[in-house]
């Protein structure tokens, strides 16, 4: 029983991270209709960014978010203007091809500069604390807390600011957005920038718990698919719920199938995806309908 509760706690903590990790993928898909297969590579870039700042300047990985997010926003903005803008409003296949190419190019570029050696980002507060008989690893708890803060901030931004509303408008009805005077191209660039910044932030956070290497990206992209199918496109509460479900299921499978460890995580994620597609293809919440951003 204790072991089960502990697994639930671990799954929950992992799920919070998954929730923030998937946001960028889900919002880009929901707003622009682009499935970004290079999503995991931006997690990887964020992780390396944190590692570099930590190694060369000794900056704490969580503190480094203050630098990483604005820089990666600009990277995303530029990438949208130069590359992604050419594939928006084109058939899905073109977007898949271009972003898949981008993912391979990025992973190999990083291998060229950083080699394939796994890196770790050490933090001084690497212990855990007990609460109600359950163990909470400090780092994972911080990641969970920060993830919730980021999700809440994005929710408030999209819901209540003028820019946020224009992003939702462009996602829901592009033509109507143009009619009322929204510059859709600018909105797309800003959206892409925000999403890349969020994704890199997730990468920087996760660098404290797993090794960083150039080919760490694809599993994140694949899990992003599952979570988006669970929670729906561009939906923040859905991303959190989907993330937690995946996190808990992965953790439970890991303790119940001994000797396999979390390597089975990816398999779990796909079994889950297949089950969702059979049982509830519209997703758990409102599901895989495009043009929904809340």
């Amino acid at each position, binding site marked *: 029983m204790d072991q089960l509760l502990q697994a639930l706690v671990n799954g929950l903590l992992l799920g919070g991270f998954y929730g923030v990790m998937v946001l960028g993928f889900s919002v880009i898909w929901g707003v622009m209709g682009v499935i970004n297969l290079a999503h995991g590579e931006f997690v990887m870039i964020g992780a390396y960014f944190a590692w570099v700042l930590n190694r060369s300047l000794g900056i704490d990985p969580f503190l480094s978010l203050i630098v990483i997010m604005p820089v990666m926003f600009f990277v995303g903005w530029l990438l949208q203007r130069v590359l992604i803008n050419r594939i928006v409003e084109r058939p899905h296949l073109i977007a898949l091809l271009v972003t898949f190419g981008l993912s391979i190019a990025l992973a190999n570029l990083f291998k060229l500069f950083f080699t394939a050696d796994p890196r770790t980002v050490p933090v001084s507060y690497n212990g855990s604390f007990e609460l109600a008989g359950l163990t909470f690893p400090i780092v994972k708890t911080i990641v969970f807390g920060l993830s919730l803060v980021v999700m809440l901030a994005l929710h408030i931004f999209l819901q209540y600011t*003028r820019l946020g509303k224009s992003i939702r408008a462009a996602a829901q009805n592009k033509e109507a957005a143009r009619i009322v*005077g929204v510059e859709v191209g600018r909105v797309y660039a800003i959206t892409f920038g925000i999403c890349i910044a969020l994704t890199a932030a997730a990468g920087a956070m996760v660098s404290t718990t797993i090794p960083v290497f150039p080919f760490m990206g694809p599993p994140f992209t694949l899990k992003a698919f599952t979570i988006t199918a669970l929670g729906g496109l561009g939906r923040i509460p859905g991303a959190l719920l989907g993330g937690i479900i995946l996190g808990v299921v992965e953790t439970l499978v890991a303790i119940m199938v001994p000797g396999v460890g979390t390597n089975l995580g990816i398999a779990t994620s796909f079994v889950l995806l297949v089950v969702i597609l059979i049982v509830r293809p519209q997703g758990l919440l409102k599901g895989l309908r495009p043009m929904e951003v809340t």
Partner: protein
Amino acid sequence: MMTQPSPNGDHLLVADNIYAGYLDYDILKGVSLHVDKGEVVCVIGPNGAGKSTVFKAIYGLLRVRKGHIFFDGQEITNWRPQEILRAGISIVPQLHSIFPQMTVYENLEMGLYLVRDKRRIQERIDYVLSLFPRLAERRNQQAGTMSGGERRMLEIGRALLLEPKLVMMDEPSAGLAPLITRMIFENVRRLNEEIGLTVLMIEQNARQGLEYSHRGYVLELGENTYKGSARELLEDPEVRRAFLGGR
């Protein structure tokens, strides 16, 4: 030799002998019409006659190759849609132009996206909600969950936000049940009587469109073949036979 027409100060909108179309092909071959302040004017005609093309040509969505368009005393031929909007023409397009997952209130806010003054935004939204009690009741409801008629009202309401001198409606009855269509037209008439709203609408539903208009134009193969008061058109035997399904 082209004659140079002068802007006629009496009319709010004048389209004078306009030619427009796609590529080299003119769909409109010399269409003329005018709308006076406080009028409801309806353009009817069969499919493919160029009704929507008139709409697009006036609103700058399609290049006018020949002819002139005047609005409120100035020539607006081939202005960009944004400039025309600023000059005082709002449109209610045929395609669905609401944001389905936003509330009614947020939809209206988006209609004033280009206005920065918060007080003015509030004033205009309150004004429009006062014109449409039904929308006021549903201000916090998601627009996509409303009926087709209510959504069309929201589109019309949003067109009124910027205090337009003229509202152009492209097939306000499109995709709506007959009863709902009547409700939409009743509202157009009411707005015309209550606040003097000037409307130019393009209608497939010729009989109903004319019943709620002061004047009408019949468009056939890119030319206007008949014009007159709505009553004259409704009673004209030729028009009745060809467009109103009557005998």
